[in-house]
């Protein structure tokens, strides 16, 4: 066991190093952050040179502490508009004379709680609070106000800690609106993006894994490798390495979206408003990884069975087509996420990752069902890894023969 792990580690490190140093991989990985940075650069440039750009709307402030000084109109470059009651602030928000309203309640010095009223704001990603610039402005306002008071230890502590924002979305009628709808949209978008990323990753990463194995078989490098490591270690090391490389790529993409898009949204307010449920995101990520694992293992098996690179590329469609088919039925899942079809698809290893990613986003799937589906996918992946190693061994046993089913079955029996 230890020897197998040691062999796997060797293969994993080398494959990861080789894969991530490829020009194609580097270009693809940096593509998303580069595009986002360029978009941000263009927006900033256009805004900088635009002579008649719209004046940003002020931030509304409602101070309910009786003995506090009124808000100054301008603080560190931010314009504030003070209101004496919460309702006045809400009215200004619905009339769109302010971007958002911060209500500082009487118990603020004790609790640090500040109410954040907003209509439609900016893309906040995983952050459910106000944008970075708004919260910085309000915190600056609070510090200034606190400094004007007679400083007690309580106020000093509050000035250091700052504030926590309580989010309240105000509808056009001036009444609070449930946040769930926004969160759901955000999670659906994330699930859809991950489903497409899964298809894309399999087409790029897993398919190249199959191709690489077939190439090694074609040029007999595999013979040299097999005189040093066991087929199972070789397959597992490769699958993990390519999977990790894809994960790095996706982390860079998602990371750059999370970091850069809110900056863009700060510049162009009211563009997006899709907060994301972090708990669901973890599930979505787990299903993405499990789906990628199963597909990589199947691609590795295809590479192991193929005698030529061309053959491996042709056979790769056996994986990609059912995967694309599962994307086509996403519409059905969205229309009836708790229905029989959605549930069945959630337990077929091929379709389960995308089906579950969508169901999690639109319908509260029970934790038990999610775990069961995940277990089915992972167990299938492990079993297929073992089968792939046997196929690999069997295809070597069949070296020099034209593969057919009878020979393959015989070779599989002998491959142990």
């Amino acid at each position, binding site marked *: 066991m230890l*020897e197998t792990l040691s062999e796997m580690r*060797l293969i994993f490190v*080398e494959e990861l*190093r*080789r894969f991530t*140093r*490829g020009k194609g991989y580097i270009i693809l990985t940096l593509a998303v952050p580069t595009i986002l940075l360029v978009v941000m650069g263009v927006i900033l440039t256009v805004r900088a040179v635009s002579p008649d750009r719209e004046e940003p709307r002020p931030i509304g402030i409602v101070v309910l502490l009786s003995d506090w000084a009124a808000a100054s109109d301008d603080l560190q470059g931010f314009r504030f508009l003070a209101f004496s009651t919460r309702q006045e602030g809400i009215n200004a928000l619905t009339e769109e004379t302010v971007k958002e309203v911060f209500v500082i309640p009487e118990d603020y010095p004790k609790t640090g709680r500040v109410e954040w009223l907003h209509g439609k704001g900016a893309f906040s990603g995983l952050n459910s609070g106000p944008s970075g610039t708004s919260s910085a402005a309000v915190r600056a306002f609070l510090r200034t106000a606190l400094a004007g008071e007679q400083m007690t230890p309580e106020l000093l502590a509050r000035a250091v800690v700052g504030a926590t924002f309580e989010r309240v979305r105000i509808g056009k009628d001036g009444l609070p609106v449930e946040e769930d709808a926004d969160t759901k949209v955000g999670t659906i978008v994330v699930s859809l993006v991950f489903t497409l990323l899964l298809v894309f990753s399999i087409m790029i990463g897993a398919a190249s894994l199959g191709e690489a194995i077939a*190439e*090694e078989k*074609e*040029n*007999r*490098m595999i*013979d*040299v*490798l*097999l*005189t*040093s*490591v*066991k087929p199972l270690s070789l397959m597992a090391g490769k699958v993990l390495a390519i999977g990790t490389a894809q994960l790095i790529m996706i982390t860079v993409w998602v990371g750059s979206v999370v970091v850069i898009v809110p900056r863009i949204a700060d510049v162009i307010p009211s563009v997006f408003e899709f907060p994301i449920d972090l708990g669901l995101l973890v599930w979505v990520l787990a299903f993405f990884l499990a789906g990628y694992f199963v597909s990589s293992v199947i691609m590795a098996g295809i590479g192991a069975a193929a005698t030529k690179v061309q053959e491996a590329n042709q056979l790769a469609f056996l994986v990609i087509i059912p995967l694309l088919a599962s994307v086509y039925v996403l519409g059905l899942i969205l229309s009836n996420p708790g229905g029989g079809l959605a549930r069945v698809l959630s337990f077929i290893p091929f379709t389960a990752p995308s089906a579950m990613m969508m169901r999690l986003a639109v319908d509260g799937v029970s934790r038990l069902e999610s775990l069961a589906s995940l277990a089915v996918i992972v167990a299938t992946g492990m079993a297929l890894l073992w089968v792939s190693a046997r196929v690999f061994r069997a295809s*070597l*046993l069949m*070296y*020099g*023969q034209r593969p057919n089913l009878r020979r393959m079955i015989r070779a599989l029996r*002998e491959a142990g």
Partner: protein
Amino acid sequence: MNVALEIKDVTKVYDSRAVVDDVSLAVERGETFGLLGPNGSGKTTTIRMALDIIRPESGSVSLLGGMSTRKALTRVGYLPEERGLYQKSKVIDILVYLGRLKRMDAATARANAREMLQRVGLYEYRNKKVQALSRGMTQLVQFSGALLHKPELIILDEPFAGLDPLNVQLMKEILREQKERGAAIVFSTHQMPDVEELCERVLLINDGQTLLYGRLTELRRARGMRSVRVTADRQPENMLGVVDTKLQNGSFEYLMGEGTKPDEVLRAYLDASIPVERYEIALPSLNQIFIEEVSRARNAK
């Protein structure tokens, strides 16, 4: 413990045809062994069975005195017939990887890789990608990879194919050094002069069956009594018992039929009063033996 590789009665069947049929051989440490045979005779299959890449239907393989196969394989160097390296990787990186696969630590693998690259004259190419190398250079890199962990058993499948004479010479020198170090070397080839130059013992197979197996000098001597070389101005008109005559480098070479003794050729010269400058019983070349044995086996079918 002196036997580095022992193959006993191995048989491999593809499509109900035995591509290796009951073949046995043993190679000792410090010995260079030639595995000979025409194309498709089963040499590579035998090698692949020896390395546990494929398994025989029957028979057994023992490496390094019966050590467990996985452990023994870390002490075996192998150069396959069809060469392939990762085209986009640097030469030094591939060699370090091959060394690591043989359980060397990274620093030792790197040091040995540099040493091997210096030995084969490719040190300055260490940071080049494989795709930038010529075919011969790539072959030398792969050869280096097979040797850098100082294996106790070296198995080379057609190692000299495609190399220029200088590189062949270099490879032979390195193989002699490995032999002096105590390594057992097994190589397959079609080039009989290479075998005569390097090997003590050989196995000749055809259609998976053993035709000859043994010490090269003994195999040649056993067939040598049928060939005589005479240096003279001319030859007698009647040469009884001679089945074939060749004029080679100013000498007459006679292949005698069954039952004819070498001194009968000399007697024929003396009877014809032809002065003989030189008379020798010629040992046949391995090439002759190869052609003769394989032709005979094919004709017998």
